[in-house]
């Protein structure tokens, strides 16, 4: 579990602040990795475990905000907690809109930071689960025959077996058989469950 446990990443050029945060976060049993600059973070290989990023807004070279937009651009959805020396409302709004979890002003209360970390890790965990589910569904969906996919599309839109048979120019019995096969492959217990799966897969109704 220790190797697979979540990791908190810290990017701050001030070693004192960086070390202090590391110390605090370790004290609640989380793993921490620290970076002195945005570039160092970008070039590091990260394990695929739940994690979050604590990011100083102002740094020499690439700033925290620059790093956020860079991550969005490359599709890295890691949750970000910003910390800043001073409250700058427009800046806070900007980073929150871009998906940041929290914007903390130094010096901050430990609980605020830890709560933000928990929230961010939770969010990452959920995202990771959803990602895993979609991957599973895709596998199931790809095992369907073309006819089964058509049947699924009609089932999701709410048509009865008879109506589907008419649409596809075949008998209700055949459809019933194919529908059972499809439901089994997709491991769907009920039509509503299949509808949710379809939504996740983005199968057009």
């Amino acid at each position, binding site marked *: 579990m220790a190797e697979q446990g979540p990791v908190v990443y810290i990017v701050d050029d*001030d070693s*004192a602040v960086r070390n*202090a945060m590391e110390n605090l976060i370790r004290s609640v049993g989380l793993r921490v990795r620290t970076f002195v600059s945005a570039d160092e973070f970008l070039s590091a290989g990260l394990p695929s475990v739940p994690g979050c990023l604590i990011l100083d807004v102002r740094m020499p070279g690439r700033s925290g905000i620059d790093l956020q937009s860079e991550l969005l651009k490359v599709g890295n959805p890691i949750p970000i907690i910003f910390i800043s020396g001073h409250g700058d409302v427009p800046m806070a709004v900007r980073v929150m809109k871009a998906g940041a979890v929290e914007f903390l002003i130094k010096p*901050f209360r*430990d609980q605020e930071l830890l709560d933000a970390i928990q929230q961010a890790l939770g969010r990452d965990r959920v995202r990771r689960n959803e990602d895993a589910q979609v991957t599973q569904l895709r596998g199931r969906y790809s095992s369907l025959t073309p006819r089964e996919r058509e049947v699924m599309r009609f089932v999701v839109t709410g048509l009865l077996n008879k109506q589907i048979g008419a649409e596809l120019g075949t008998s209700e019995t055949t459809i019933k058989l194919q529908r059972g096969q499809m439901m089994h492959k997709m491991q769907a217990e009920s039509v509503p469950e299949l509808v949710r799966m379809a939504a996740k897969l983005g199968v057009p109704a």
Partner: protein
Amino acid sequence: MSSQPKPGASPTLKDCLAGGGKMGALMRSMDWSKTPIGPVETWSLALRMVVQLLLVNRFQLFLWWGPQFCQIYNDASWLILGEKHPNSMGQPASECWAEIWHIIGPLIRTPYQGGDSTWMDDILLEKNRSGFMQETHFTIAYSPVPDASVPGGIGGVLGTVHEITEKVVAERRVMVLRDLRARSTEAKTVEEACAIAGETLCQHAKDIPFALLYLVDADRKRARLAGHAGVDRAKAESPLLMELAPECRDQQIWPLPETLHDAFHVVEDLPRRLATVPPGPWSDPPQTAVALPIRSDLANHHPAGVLVLGISSRLRLDDRYKDFCELVSSQVATAIANARAYEERKKRAETLAEIDLLQDITPGKGAEEQPVMARNELEQRVSERTAQLLKSNEQLRREIAEREKVQAEAIALKEELAAELSAEEASRESEERFRRYFDLGLVGMAITSPTKACLEVNDELCRILGYEREELLHMIWAEMTYPDDLAADVASFNRVLAEEIDGYSMDKRWLRKDGRIIDTIMAAKCVRRSNGSVNYFVGLVQDITERKRAEEEQRKLAALVENSPDFIGLASLDGEVYIVNPAGRALVGLNDAAQATETRVLDYMAEEDRATFQQQIWPHVLREGAWEGETRFRHFKSGAIIPAREHIFLIKEPRTERPVAMAMIVRDITERKRAEEALRTAQEQLAHIARVTTMGELAASIAHEVSQPLTAVVTNGDAGLRWLSQSPPNVEEAQKAMTEMVRQGHRASEVIARIRTLLRKSKSNISTVNINELIGEVLALTRQKAEEHGVIVRVDVARDTPLISGDSVQLQQVLTNLILNALEATNAKKNGAREVLVTSQCQGTNEVVIAVHDAGTGIDPQHMDQLFRPFFTTKETGLGMGLAISRSIVEAHGGRLWATPKPERGTTFQFSLPIRGVF
């Protein structure tokens, strides 16, 4: 900012080279480690002390230090060195004075090796000055300088130099003129006069290395060599005959026609013009000669000849030399005129004889044998010539008769005088004595008749009145008397004639021939005949123009002292005050001159300075002849302290150099001190305002600087609590967290202390400053500002920059200013590199240069020269004081601050600071 040390305080490293004018500045700029006496910081106390005294002294002083006699000198002395300066500073004396080392070397070495002080009165040195070897004369005293820190006890030798070249040369030239004059009446012919002049000039080769005297023939077509000195006759350079025709000019070696035509001519580059140059008294021959007309015949405006004079190769041909040559020429002219007058008298006598002869020729004698035509012609010519001669004969006879009459009168007078004298039993001896006085010319003397005619005059009287003897003998004294003084003179004269008195004396002014008025004292005494009537007068006239002028000068000097705004006082060597001028009395609260004479020098000093004066200043004055510096005076009534700058010097008897009194010139510097203090306060306040302004600009940066360590403290505290609340508590981690808390707490308080320092109104506080550390601190304060602007500040500092001495707060202020300016300049630009580079670099061993380069918009060239002016700003919110104050701070550190546009873009601001500079 006074660096003037108090007397007696031992000079520290910093101030021993302070002040001292140009030489002080030169010495400060030098790398002494390259000289035999090594870097300044290794100098002994004795050396520092003597250098400091030497630099501020106004006398010409040289110091030769150490076994190699490394040379140091002051402002007063560098003229002596001529073009040896400035290499001569710090140079071993034997190198600097190589050409005269055989003379001065032993004089310096003797006191250095423990012998007596040496002294040399009028030493002649040939010295290379202004590009050629010059004849110079000095009086030099060499005295040992004790230094306890060296084994021999003597660190070096102090040379007090007094240059007397001008005096020596001037005295010598007066001798030349005197000798010429003394022999000016000997000659019977013009040729003889020229020969005598040549002989005389032979004796004075130092000023006249050679001389050629050419006389112009009566037809003015040729000139003959009539006198010569320092060169033989009939050599290439001394031809016996020279053609004066203009077409011959180019072949002549001397420019006689030109000189006869338009006076003074300088002939340069003799070695090139002449095959052999007359050698002269020095090792190398004269380079230059001058040619002057001899004006002895003023009546017809034609000079009698030309005098060619060699110019000493050891002297500069300045105005004085030229004047001297003119005077030599006019003395020669006088001698020629005297001889010519003699010759003319003789010729007249011969002419008379010729006329007598002609009158013997009777017309018609032997005429029968002559053809008529020829006889008529001859008769006519003879009669014309006879008429001519008879006419001049008559004129001459008349003149001679007059002269004979006058002479007869004089002879009669003399005979009568002799008779009277013998009758009055005056011995012949006394007559001779009178004659000697008469001829000696100590005073002007005349024997005059009761009709005011001059019967006999001596040379001195001729000189005083500016007339030739012959002219005076035809004048009466009344016509030479200044009109305002005539009445008084005539009144007394008439009383003598009336037998009321036998003589009188008066201050009398005369009108010279040249129109000048001359002051004299005149005494007249009559000699009476046995019947009581006046036989003749003996008049004595003494020229007191010089004395009057001296009196006038004396009066002006006295007025100068009386009216001087400075304290001027004179005292005996025992300290008894003779006089204190009114300004001086006012300064110290003395009632009158009489009260001043009851005081002693020490009474003027503030209590605190009396010991210093007695133990150090006064001995220094006695030893060196002068002292200059600052002490405190005392007000006699209020006892108030008066800061004073003093110049004390000994007054010496001109001939023996024996000190006879001391003089003290004192200036009240209270106002100056106050003004300096006010200026310093104002500057400090201004700098403070500028710092506060800068701090305002830095507020965000500073907040960040404080919030960083605070964040670390709080976060570490939180972490520590959490480690401890675990079960079991993780003490090790908690300790780590707390150690970090303490560290960061200190960091925060350092930041605050730094800010407080910058905001404090502090007097300048000099310490050693490490430039690279200083750069680091300023970057810490401005880092956040740089991040705000998105500018990267890069640093490229020289390793091992030496320490400098200065005020670190002020220097931080300068650098902060430059960096903030650079950040703003970079920010104002939309694209391109957003980078500021801060560098430090050693320039040689003398200074370190700190530069801030930005790649910003650059500075408008038309603003470049105004940049450093107060209240000049291009920023909307700027005060415009930053750069002005920065520059004044840097300059107070002995450095410079300047800006240069960078070739590609942006600007470089940089400032230099002297390494171990004097502040």
